[in-house]
C-alpha cells in the first residue's frame, strides 16, 4: 500500500546524534585519533571519499569497518547529498523524514558514520585531484560557498568518486524569469531550507523526479496545478524484465502516483511547458502536447496560471573530477556521459573508484549498493586481501546492482530527451544563462561558422564560458550543435564529455597559497 497521510505526520524520536554539530559528530567515538581541523594534510588516508550522499556514506562506513583510515569530503555542512538533504540542526526539525522517501536507510548510514572512525570534512569543495607519487592529492577550498581563507589538501592511497549528479536543463522561452527554478532545486530548497518559490507551482520536464517533487511541494502547502511530463510512461513497458525484477521501484512509483491523486494533481504526459509568461516574475505557462520526438504541437497549446515553475529533464552525472584525471567515460542511454567502472566499481584509472550516479543515474538505493561494493574493493586493495571480493556480501551486492542497473537503463530510455525539443526554442531565448547567449547566436555559430560541438560554440559565442562553466546550458548547446551536424553532414560524431579543469571556483589567493608541491603554504608538512 502507498504511504498513508498519517505517516507524514508521524513523529519519531529524535536521533541523539542530531544534536551534535556535524564536525564533532565525525570524530571517532571509540577513542581513536582525532584530527584537528586544518591539519588534515599531515595525515595520509587509505581512502578519500568525495561526496557524502548515499554512495559516499555507504563506501566510507564499510571501508572504515574493514580497517581503512577514511576521509569523507563534502561541500555541504550536512551529510546526505542531494537526495537526503535535510534542515540544518539549528532549524530543530523533529520530522525531517516527512519530506523524504526511505529516510530510515539514511538514518542508519548516518548512525554508522557517527560510530565510525571516518573523518568527515564538511564544507570542503573539491576542485581537483592530482597524482602525488604513489598517493592522490585531493584539493579543496572550504566554507559554505568555498570562499574560506585556506585551501586544503587531503592525501590518500585511493579515492572514491561519489559526486552524484546535477539536473539536465533544456531551455524554453523566458525560462530565465524569476520563479522558474530547477525541479531538483525546488526540492533541495524545500528539503534543506523549508522554502517554496511560490504558492501555485507547475512541475515540468521529464523523469521520475517530477512526481516526487510535486508530492513534496503539495505536502508542504503549495498548490500544484499540473505535473507536465514530456515522455509517456508506457515507454517503461518496453523493458518488462527490468520492471519485473524491481518491484520496489514499482511500489515507489505507486506511492508517488497515490500522492498525486491525494493532492489532486493532474499528470499530463507527452506534454511540455513551451513558454513562460510574466514580466518580472512567473505569471503563467503555456503547455503543449508533444509528438514522439518532443516536437510541440502548437494547436494543443493552453495556458496554466501559476506563480512558479519547477522544471528539470532528468539528471546528469557529475564527473569532472574523474574525467580531469583521465577516467574513461561511456555514453548513457539518455545521451549523457557516465564513468566506466569494472565489476567492483573501479574506474579505468587504478586506485580510483566511482559509485552511484557518477556511473550512470540510478537512484539512492543503487548508490548505496555501489558505494558499499566500492568500499569493500578499496579495502581489499589497500590491505592486500582480495579474497574479500569473493565473499558472499560482495556477490550479493553485485546481484542487486545488476538488477537495479537494468531498471536505471529502462528509466534512461523512457525519459531520454526527444530529438525535436529544440523546436520550442525561439531565437531570442537565452540558452546560456550566465553569459546571456541566445539560441539565435548559437544557431548562427552552427549555421554560418560551422560549429559542430559545444566546445566550438563556446569559443565562438561564450555559451558555457560563464560562472557555471556550462553546467546549465551544456546539454542544450550540445543538442543545437550536433543536431545541425546530422542535418548537413550525415551522422555527426557523438560530442565529447565536457571538461572542467577546475570543478569548483578557486580564488587566486587560494592558488597562490599552494606551494609547488601542492601543499597549502602556511603549513609545514609534519615528518611522518
Amino acid at each position, binding site marked *: 500500500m502507498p504511504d498513508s497521510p498519517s505517516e507524514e505526520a508521524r513523529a519519531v524520536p529524535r536521533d541523539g546524534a542530531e544534536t551534535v554539530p556535524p564536525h564533532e559528530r565525525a570524530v571517532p567515538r571509540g577513542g581513536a585519533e582525532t584530527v584537528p581541523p586544518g591539519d588534515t594534510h599531515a595525515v595520509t588516508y587509505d581512502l578519500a571519499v568525495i561526496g557524502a550522499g548515499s554512495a559516499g556514506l555507504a563506501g566510507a562506513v564499510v571501508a572504515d569497518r574493514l580497517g581503512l583510515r577514511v576521509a569523507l569530503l563534502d561541500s555541504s555542512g550536512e551529510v546526505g547529498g542531494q537526495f537526503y538533504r535535510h534542515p540544518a540542526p539549528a532549524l530543530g526539525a523533529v520530522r525531517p523524514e516527512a519530506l523524504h522517501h526511505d529516510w530510515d536507510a539514511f538514518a542508519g548510514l548516518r548512525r554508522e558514520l557517527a560510530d565510525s572512525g571516518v573523518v568527515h570534512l564538511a564544507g570542503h569543495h573539491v576542485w581537483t585531484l592530482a597524482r602525488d607519487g604513489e598517493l592522490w592529492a585531493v584539493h579543496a577550498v572550504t566554507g559554505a560557498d568555498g570562499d574560506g581563507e585556506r585551501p586544503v589538501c587531503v592525501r590518500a592511497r585511493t579515492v572514491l568518486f561519489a559526486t552524484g549528479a546535477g539536473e539536465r536543463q533544456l531551455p524554453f522561452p523566458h525560462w530565465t524569469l*524569476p520563479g522558474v527554478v530547477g525541479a531538483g532545486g525546488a526540492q533541495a530548497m524545500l528539503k534543506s531550507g*523549508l522554502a517554496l518559490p511560490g504558492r501555485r507551482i507547475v512541475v515540468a520536464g521529464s523523469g521520475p523526479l517530477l512526481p516526487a517533487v510535486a508530492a513534496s511541494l503539495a505536502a508542504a502547502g503549495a498548490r500544484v496545478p499540473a505535473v507536465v511530463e514530456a515522455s509517456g510512461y508506457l515507454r517503461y513497458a518496453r523493458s518488462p524484465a527490468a520492471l519485473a525484477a524491481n518491484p520496489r521501484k514499482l511500489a515507489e512509483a505507486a506511492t508517488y502516483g497515490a500522492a498525486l491523486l491525494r493532492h489532486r494533481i493532474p499528470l499530463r504526459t507527452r506534454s511540455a511547458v513551451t513558454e513562460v509568461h510574466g514580466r518580472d516574475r512567473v505569471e503563467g505557462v503555456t503547455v503543449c502536447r508533444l509528438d514522439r520526438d518532443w516536437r510541440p504541437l502548437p494547436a494543443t497549446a493552453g495556458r496554466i496560471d501559476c506563480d512558479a515553475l519547477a522544471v528539470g529533464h532528468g539528471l546528469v552525472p557529475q564527473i569532472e573530477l574523474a574525467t580531469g584525471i583521465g577516467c574513461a567515460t561511456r555514453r548513457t542511454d539518455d545521451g549523457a556521459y557516465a564513468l566506466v567502472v569494472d565489476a567492483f566499481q573501479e574506474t579505468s584509472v587504478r586506485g580510483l573508484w566511482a559509485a552511484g550516479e557518477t556511473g550512470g543515474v540510478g537512484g539512492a538505493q543503487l548508490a548505496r549498493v555501489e558505494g558499499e561494493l566500492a568500499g569493500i574493493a578499496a579495502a581489499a586493495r589497500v590491505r592486500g586481501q582480495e579474497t574479500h571480493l569473493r565473499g558472499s556480501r560482495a556477490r550479493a551486492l553485485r546481484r542487486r546492482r545488476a538488477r537495479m542497473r537494468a531498471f536505471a537503463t529502462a528509466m534512461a530510455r523512457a525519459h531520454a530527451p526527444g530529438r525535436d525539443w529544440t523546436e520550442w526554442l525561439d531565437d531570442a531565448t537565452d540558452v546560456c544563462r550566465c553569459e546571456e547567449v541566445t539560441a539565435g547566436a548559437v544557431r548562427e555559430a552552427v549555421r554560418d561558422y560551422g560549429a559542430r560541438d559545444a566546445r566550438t560554440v563556446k569559443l565562438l559565442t561564450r555559451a558555457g564560458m560563464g560562472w557555471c562553466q556550462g553546467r546549465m546550458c551544456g546539454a542544450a548547446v550540445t543538442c543545437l550543435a550536433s543536431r545541425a551536424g546530422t542535418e548537413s553532414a550525415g551522422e555527426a560524431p557523438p560530442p565529447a564529455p565536457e571538461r572542467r579543469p577546475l570543478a569548483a571556483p578557486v580564488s587566486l589567493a587560494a592558488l597562490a597559497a599552494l606551494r609547488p608541491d601542492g601543499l597549502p603554504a602556511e603549513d609545514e608538512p609534519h615528518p611522518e
Partner: protein
Amino acid sequence: MTRHRSPAALVGAATESAFEITFDGRTLSALPGQSVAAALWSAGVLAWRTTRVGGRPRGAFCGIGQCYDCLATINGRPNRRACLVPARPGDAITTQEGEGHAGLAV
C-alpha cells in the same frame, strides 16, 4: 482556499527562534540554518541580482550551488552564492548589479 500547511509545520521546525535580516533595507525574518536564498524565498523575494548584459532580474535557479544565478551581495561582499551561504542575524543582503563591483570602481 485557505491552507495552513507550511514546510516548517510539515517537518516540525522550531520557528520561534527566527531572527531578522534585511534585503535592500527592508527587514525580513529568517530561521536559523536557512540559507540566504531560502530566507528570501520564504519572504516572497525571488530576484536579488541583475544580469551583466541585459540587466534582467535573477534569483535562485538550481538551488544546489551549481548555476551561480543566485549571486548576492551579502554584508557588502558581492558574488556570494545565496543558496549555500547560511543566513545570520543582522545580515544585510543587497541586490547585486551586474558583476557586483560597481561600488569598488575608482
